[in-house]
């Protein structure tokens, strides 16, 4: 039997993370999707996408302390996700990432949440929110994995 190497089917992948640690964790596994058409979205200014020509889309930073900027962040995400029409949405958090998963789900995308390695004792609030709209839910701590609740451990970004 001859094995034919099939080319990877190119998908549109949106990757969202808040600035700082969330972004740094996202960049560490971004190479896994470099064969696809990727759009990076973050809350921080001046970031450079790990690959590709597209600039990083900047959205307003909403955390649960600041409702006003959270609303702005939802509108920014809604605009760029509708324009990009992603097949897959991936986020490492925080709050804007959970919103992106919800919006991605409304657009029919496959949604993947990768909980930050910082959350070693319990899932973050954003993670718990994202759980309700994530097709794939990943924790980086083995003791937080729970197959019954569809929370998987697949290793770490470190």
């Amino acid at each position, binding site marked *: 039997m001859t094995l034919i190497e099939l080319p990877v089917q190119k998908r549109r992948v949106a990757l969202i993370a808040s600035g700082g640690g969330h972004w*740094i964790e996202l960049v560490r596994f971004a190479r896994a999707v470099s064969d696809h058409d990727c759009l990076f979205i973050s809350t921080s200014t001046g970031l450079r996408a790990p690959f590709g020509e597209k600039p990083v889309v900047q959205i307003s930073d909403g955390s649960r302390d600041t409702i006003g900027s959270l609303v702005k962040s939802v509108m920014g995400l809604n605009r760029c996700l509708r324009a990009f029409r992603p097949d897959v949405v991936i986020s490492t958090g925080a709050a804007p990432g959970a919103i992106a998963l919800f919006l991605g789900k409304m657009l029919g995308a496959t949604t993947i949440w990768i909980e930050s390695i910082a959350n070693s004792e319990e899932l973050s609030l954003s993670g718990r929110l994202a759980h309700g709209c994530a097709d794939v839910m990943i924790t980086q701590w083995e003791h937080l994995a729970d197959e019954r609740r569809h929370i998987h451990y697949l290793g770490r970004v470190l």
Partner: protein
Amino acid sequence: MILLSVGTQLPFDRLVKSVDQWAAAHPEVEVIAQIGPSRYVPKAMDACDFFDPEHFRELQERCTLMVSHAGVGSIVNALELGKPIIILGRDHLRNEHRNGHQISTVEQFGNLPGIYAARDEQHLIELMNRRDLMGPASRLSADAPPEFLDHIRECVASARPMPLWRLLWRAIRDR
């Protein structure tokens, strides 16, 4: 040069003040700080609220020691660049963060080579005084381990989207 960073979202006056006082007592050492929205105004350090990411990366490459809150970003950067790092966890009981995850981060990562966990401000100063004895962190590659990348690649290629109502139902049912 010593580089202090406390993230950009929340103030961390306890750390900024301690390092500034150390810097005042050691004028021969250059200390640069990214202090975010901290209220304390540094007197002996070259401080800024926010450095552009690329400039910040240059400072990280140039420094000989990092001092930081226990944020995963700072720790990963120190490991990637092989720099020693002293971390002080934000204590949510003092309103330094929304929850206690930085204290857990200190417990999980504080024992790795090159990472020095400060118990409190006093211990932080002791660690800074011993900076010449500090070995670098064991260098981490810029990418996650290959197995992790393979898992993500596989998820992106083959996971199929379920409708929102099924995901919500699943999450509620299996609580």
